[in-house]
């Protein structure tokens, strides 16, 4: 065991994992995080807390994780390189471990231009692959980037994102290989709607044996409304929504029900794909639907390990 987090135990015991996303509030109420945590804790193995997602200022991921930890939930701290240089990154990692956080997801982050402070200076001192290298070195060698010793252990289960739907397609698997080589233990993918393309991507992943080197969790976004389907199809960087899904949402009598149905169908298909070890449900502003999706996809109860 590298970090002995619940997520690591589930995945290394060969079970199909379920993680979900918990967006922290645009404010100071810890209660908001706790409430989301309570409603999700029985349907997932770990909960990601986003890090100023889409560059909108929110409560920090590290503090959201600490609040979840207090409820006995295994948190996944997300960290983007957009807002921190190598000094702040390493310092936050030390603090996160001290607070009991055992999983970390290394990300570039959405560009600050998309957020609510679009004129902010982006940091990008290092990139996401270099962040993985840094965390691995901190964990495995107990050394900072500069080679100095760290006092204490840095047990972290290291995650990263992968987007099978970005371009150039043929480079996407190479980039995943780079992340795995850099030291990643698990991958949470961008939300999957285009199953055909995901299947092609997974075939390439298996061809290179990458599914044996890192645990791949497939991203799921339950679509709440027709507007959301259209918006994601058009405006969200890195997400592709096929026309037929938008049409299904448009023609449905009850759009929310259809959204749940689509999410469950996607999970059912994903469960059958060789090399996929779990799902990551990102129910943006619709967290209370997650227990139902997980249950109806046949993934309840969650195993105890």
């Amino acid at each position, binding site marked *: 065991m590298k970090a002995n987090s619940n997520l690591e135990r589930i995945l290394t015991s060969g079970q199909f994992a379920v993680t979900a996303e918990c967006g922290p509030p645009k404010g100071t109420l810890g209660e908001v995080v706790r409430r989301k945590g309570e409603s999700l804790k029985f349907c997932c193995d770990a909960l990601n807390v986003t890090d100023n997602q889409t560059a909108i200022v929110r409560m920090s991921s590290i503090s959201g994780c600490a609040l979840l930890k207090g409820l006995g939930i295994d948190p996944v701290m997300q960290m983007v390189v957009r807002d921190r240089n190598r000094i702040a990154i390493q310092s936050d990692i030390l603090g996160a471990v001290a607070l009991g956080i055992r999983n970390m997801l290394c990300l570039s982050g959405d560009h600050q*231009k998309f957020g609510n402070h679009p004129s902010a200076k*982006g940091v990008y001192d*290092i990139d*996401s692959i*270099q962040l993985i290298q*840094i965390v691995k070195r901190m964990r495995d060698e107990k050394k900072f980037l500069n080679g100095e010793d760290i006092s204490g252990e840095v047990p972290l289960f290291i995650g990263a994102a992968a987007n099978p739907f*970005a371009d*150039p397609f043929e480079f996407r698997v190479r980039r995943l290989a780079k992340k795995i080589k850099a030291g990643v233990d698990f991958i949470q993918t*961008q939300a999957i709607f285009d199953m055909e393309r995901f299947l092609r991507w997974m075939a390439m992943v298996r061809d290179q044996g990458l599914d044996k080197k890192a645990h791949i969790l497939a991203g799921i976004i339950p679509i709440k409304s027709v507007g959301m389907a259209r918006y994601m199809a058009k405006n969200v960087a*890195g997400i592709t929504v096929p026309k037929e899904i938008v049409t299904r949402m448009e023609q449905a009598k009850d759009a929310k029900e259809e959204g749940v149905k689509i999410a469950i169908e996607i999970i059912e298909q994903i469960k059958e794909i060789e090399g996929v070890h779990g799902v990551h449900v990102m129910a943006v502003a619709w967290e209370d639907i997650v227990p139902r999706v997980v249950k109806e996809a046949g993934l309840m109860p969650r195993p105890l390990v």
Partner: protein
Amino acid sequence: MIIAKQKDMTEIAKMVAPYSRIYVVGCGMCMTYCSAGGPEEVEKLAERLMAGREDLILEKGMIPRQCSEKFIERLEEKTRDFEAILSLGCGNGVQAVAMRFPDKRVLPALDTQFIGIEKESGLWTEMCMACGDCILWRTAGICPVTRCAKGLLNGPCGGSQEGRCEVSNDIPCAWQEIYYGLKRLGILDYLKTEVQIKSWSVRPGRLAREELKPQ
């Protein structure tokens, strides 16, 4: 070259408002080539300033380069009777002139944008940020530090779609261009190795070459 654009007229007017004797000076290098501070622009700006102010005593001129002391020297005589110098140089030029005339007000008429090229008539794009550690040999002659919105050294990120950057459809994804460039050159293997974490040079920059210093 260095690319700049003229400031808003309101800001320029506000800057020069306290002064009635102004010398307007353009630059014959980059600022002329990017049509921000050449003879034509000096002429036009002087005209507009004069139109708004009857009290103004204004003269105008050009020097070949505002970032070179030997050319700035030529302003000594010309600007003697003026309180303020309105420079159509880049930020570098304005400062060099200000350094030479510490007792005069030296004002910037331009906003310096970046080091770049004229892509087509009326369109300039940034190419280099003078980071001090060139990796262009590994990236098919395309600088990710400058031309990737996130400055990624191991791109492209998940926001790259159909050759465009997530930030804007007007910005090509530098990493996609790098990928196809390396592929064309048959050196895609360059992408397999992780690029080492960059050492950012200390700013302000300072370059000393002993062999060129006076003995």
